[in-house]
C-alpha cells in the first residue's frame, strides 16, 4: 500500500536533488536597471501596461509572458520600448523590445526564466517621454524528480 510515510519522506529527498541556484539580483540592482531604462529625469507611473503571466509556474526555466500596452500606436503617440525586469534572477534585465507605429499594436510575447518566486515589472516608454508600468508576483513551484 502507498505508505503515506514513504511518500512524505520522498518529498524532501526529491527537493534536495534540485540544482543549487546562483546568487540573485536584489531589489536594489533592479532599481538601478530600471533607472538606466528610464534615463535622466524619467518618472515611472503605474497603468496602461498589462502583464499576462501564469501566477503559479511549474518550472521556472520556460515561463510564457505577454505584455500589452494601451496605446493608439500612431506616429504621434506610440510605444517606443518595452522593458521587463526581475527582482531575484541573477541579473535584473530580461528583454528590451523596440517598436513603433508600424507595429500596429503594442503587444509582445516571449518566454523567460524565473530562478525563484519573485516580482516582475514591465515598463513601456512612450513617444511623449512618459513611462508606464505594471508589476506582478509569480510563484514558482519546484519540479520534483529532477536529475541529480
Amino acid at each position, binding site marked *: 500500500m502507498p505508505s503515506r510515510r514513504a511518500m512524505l519522506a520522498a518529498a524532501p529527498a526529491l527537493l534536495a536533488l534540485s540544482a543549487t541556484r*546562483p546568487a540573485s539580483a536584489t531589489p536594489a540592482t533592479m532599481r538601478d536597471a530600471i533607472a538606466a531604462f528610464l534615463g535622466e529625469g524619467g518618472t515611472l507611473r503605474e497603468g496602461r501596461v498589462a502583464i499576462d503571466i501564469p501566477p503559479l509556474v511549474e518550472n521556472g*526555466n*520556460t*515561463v510564457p509572458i*505577454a505584455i500589452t500596452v494601451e496605446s493608439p500606436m500612431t506616429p504621434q503617440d506610440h510605444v517606443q520600448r518595452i522593458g521587463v525586469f*526581475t527582482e531575484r*534572477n*541573477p*541579473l535584473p*534585465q*530580461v*528583454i*528590451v*523590445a*523596440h*517598436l*513603433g507605429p*508600424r*507595429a*500596429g*499594436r503594442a*503587444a*509582445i*510575447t*516571449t*518566454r*523567460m*526564466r524565473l530562478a525563484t518566486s519573485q516580482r516582475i515589472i514591465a515598463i513601456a516608454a512612450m513617444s511623449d517621454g512618459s513611462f508606464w508600468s505594471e508589476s506582478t508576483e509569480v510563484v514558482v513551484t519546484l519540479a520534483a524528480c529532477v536529475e541529480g
Partner: protein
Amino acid sequence: MARVILQVPATAVRGSVIELRALIQHPMETGFRPGSSGEVLPRDIIRRFACAWDGEEVFSAELHPAIAANPYLAFTTIATESGTLTFTWKGDNGFAQTETRRITVTP
C-alpha cells in the same frame, strides 16, 4: 545553422495588423550555470533579434540571459506592401542567422 520555426501569414490585407512569431533553437547559456565538471559554463546567448519589412526594421529586441532556451518571440506589424520579411538573430561567439519569408499584401 540553428533550426527556426517562423509563423508568417502568406497573404495579408493592406493596413491590417498581422502577428509574426519566431522560434529558434539556441541553448541561451546564462553564464551562471555549473557544467558537469563543476566550473561555470561561459555565457552563450542570442543578444539581438530584429525583423525588417523590405529592409525597414519594424521590430527588434535585446535579449538577456533571462530569456528561456530556444527563444520565442511574437509581435505584430501592419501589412504595407508585398515584399520580403527578414528575421535576424545575433549573439555570442559569432552567432548570426538570417531567415526570409515572402508575404503578399492584397488591397
